């Protein structure tokens, strides 16, 4: 059995989740503070992948990053970077596709913290960043962990977006979900089952781990 689609999937999910922590968490913090029409529009755009068919998102990304014209051509000519049918393209699409799974829970958790926590920190002379790092973030740990695991698990299960922008190139863009589809097309049900079982097991263990962690957290709060 060729395990490269599994390793590629784990690599993609790992990189995507790391990028989402760096980009999505501060973004959720920005969205959680104050209300403006501009923020509502931005939040709606970020949430779109939740409701859009993945193939639609993949189609527009394919058009946007096509090396024949527009941004895609400029990126290829200026930086020799190609997002279509490449691993970096999968990473970009995954970050966009899984963004609501990171931003949504983190933003809600931050909004549920009493405003006086940040205010108390400001009166101690702490900047907004210090307050975020030392007071706000540590107090949303369960939600943060849930968001990280959901983003990772969601990336593991991507299919439509990945197929549209990445295609099915072995070792480059053929992730596990594509390998399942490809195996079924070739009537190789044994391989399809192996890939499916591995994906199922990984995601099941991840979800169980989140539930156990959250239950442990709730118990420790009750003393």
């Amino acid at each position, binding site marked *: 059995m060729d395990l490269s689609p599994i390793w590629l999937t784990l690599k993609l999910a790992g990189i995507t989740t790391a990028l989402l922590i760096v980009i999505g968490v501060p973004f959720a913090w920005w969205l959680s503070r104050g209300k403006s029409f501009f923020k509502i529009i931005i939040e709606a755009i970020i949430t779109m992948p939740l409701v859009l068919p993945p193939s639609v998102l993949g189609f527009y990304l394919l058009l946007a990053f096509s090396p024949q014209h527009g941004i895609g051509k400029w990126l290829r000519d200026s930086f020799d970077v190609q997002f279509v049918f490449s691993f970096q393209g999968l990473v970009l699409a995954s970050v966009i596709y899984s963004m609501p799974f990171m931003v949504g829970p983190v933003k809600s958790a931050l909004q549920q913290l009493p405003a006086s926590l940040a205010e108390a920190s400001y009166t101690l002379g702490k900047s907004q960043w210090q307050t975020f790092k030392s*007071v706000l973030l540590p107090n949303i740990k369960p939600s943060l962990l849930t968001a990280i695991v959901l983003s990772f698990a969601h990336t593991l299960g991507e299919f439509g977006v990945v197929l549209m922008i990445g295609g099915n190139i072995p070792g480059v863009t053929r992730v596990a979900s594509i390998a399942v589809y490809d195996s079924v097309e070739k009537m190789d049900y044994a391989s399809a089952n192996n890939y499916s079982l591995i994906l199922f097991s990984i995601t099941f263990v991840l979800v169980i781990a989140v539930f156990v962690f959250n239950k442990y957290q709730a118990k420790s709060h009750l003393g």
Partner: protein
Amino acid sequence: MINVTIEKKLKGYHGQQVIKVDHQFTAGSVTKIYGPSGSGKTTFLKVIASLTKPEKGRIVVGGITWFDAEQKIDVPTQKRNVGFVFQQYALFPNMTVRQHLEYATTDELWIKRLLLLGKLDTLQTHKPEYLSGGQQQRLAILRALATRPKLLLMDEPFSAIDPKMKAELMAELSVLLKEMEITTIIVSHNPQELDGWATDELVFE
């Protein structure tokens, strides 16, 4: 000397109202503020700390303008160095008693003195959820003092502390505030508890 002349709109139970305050607080004085619920006492403290903005007015502290609506001057909370004791304490659930003070100051001797003052020296490793209401309130007071503020704003600071502990704490606080020449403004639903300590008062209608 602290000169405060402000107007702040407030949405209350009975529609919109306007808080108008024109008061001078003498340096080192202890002022009690009282009045009915919803009259804007907490909002007034937050205005002084720049946690909310008034529509009109000026706040001048020791000759330095903290806020001036016309000149668009607004010194941020972080630069005002005010100690603030929140009504609901606003303790950090992720930090122990000691970590609360270490977050505010690196002065180890000062931390030790504060812990003794609040009688929390034996509970240094406890997080707020394992403290009683009175202990939490004392920690909130210690944290507000940790940055050695020149102005201390306290919103119902003794409501959860038992009478014996309250009398001891107030006596020791009184000495400390005098020693550090801290100007103190206290909001209280029970202004009598501050008789003999407060040197000035401000009534909200």
